[in-house]
C-alpha cells in the first residue's frame, strides 16, 4: 500500500503524535502515556508515520526515540502553495476576461 504524508495526517491520534514529537523526540512508552489507547495502537500509528517518512527512529542506548522529519512536513505546505497558485492563475485570467467583456 502506498503511504504518503496525507495519510499520516488523516488520523487525529497521528496528528496528536506529530504535535507531541514536534516539541521533543520521545520514546513509544512516553508517547503512549498521552493516549487512552493501547500501547499496540500507538505502535501501529508510529509504524504508519514511519512508513510515511514523517518521523524517524533514533537509538539512544537501549531506548528508541521518535523524532519529526521537519522537511517532510514542509511538503504539505509546498503542496498547498501549488494548489493556491493554480487558482491564482485561473482568477487572474478571469480578471482579464471580465475586463474585456465589460466593454
Amino acid at each position, binding site marked *: 500500500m502506498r503511504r504518503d504524508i496525507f495519510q499520516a495526517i*488523516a488520523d487525529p491520534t497521528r496528528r496528536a503524535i506529530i504535535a507531541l514529537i514536534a516539541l521533543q523526540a520521545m520514546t513509544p512508552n512516553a508517547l503512549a502515556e498521552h493516549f487512552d489507547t493501547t500501547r499496540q495502537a500507538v505502535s501501529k500509528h508510529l509504524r504508519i508515520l514511519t512508513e510515511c517518512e514523517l518521523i524517524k527512529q533514533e537509538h539512544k542506548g537501549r531506548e528508541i526515540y521518535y523524532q519529526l522529519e521537519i522537511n517532510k512536513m514542509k511538503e504539505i505546505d509546498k503542496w498547498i502553495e*501549488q494548489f493556491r*497558485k*493554480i*487558482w491564482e492563475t485561473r*482568477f487572474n*485570467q478571469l*480578471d*482579464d476576461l*471580465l475586463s474585456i467583456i465589460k466593454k
Partner: protein
Amino acid sequence: MNSDLLFDFSVNKENKTVYIVREFNADLELVWKAWTTVELLDQWWGPKPFVAKTKFMNFEVGGRRFFAMVSPEGQERWFIQKFTSISPKTNFKTYNTFADKDENPELLGSEWDFNFSEQNGTTKVSITIYNESLARLEKMIEMGTLEGCAMQFKNLDELLETLSQK
C-alpha cells in the same frame, strides 16, 4: 490585475475541505455569466499553461459539463461536473469526478459549492470544495505538481515581477 481584490485560500486537511474566496471587479451579472457560460468558462478555467476544453455543458439541475484540461503537450485529463443545485446569480453546487475520455467517472468525487454576491460593483465568489478522500484532494492538483508545470508558474512569477519593476 487589481491587487486590492480579496483572495483567500485555505485548506482544512482535517475535514478534507478547501475554501476559496475571491473578489472580481465586475458586476454580479457578468461574473455569473463567466462562471456558467461554456464559451466564457473555457477562456479562463485552464490555469496556464493548461487550456480547458469543454465537450458539452448543460447548465441545469441534473445536467453535466464534460471537460478536459489540456496540457501544452496535448495531454488530456477529463472531468465530469454534475450540477446538483442552481439558484440563479446566487449559488450553484456541483459534484465533480475524474473521468476517462469516454465519460466513465471514477468512484470518488468532490462536492463543490459556489456562492456569488455583489457589493458596490465588486462581486465576491466563495467556493467550498469537499473531497471524499484526502488522496483525491491530492490528485486534484496532480497536474499542478508536475515539476515542469511548477517551474512554469515560478517563471511566470519572476517574469511578472521583473515587468512590474520597470
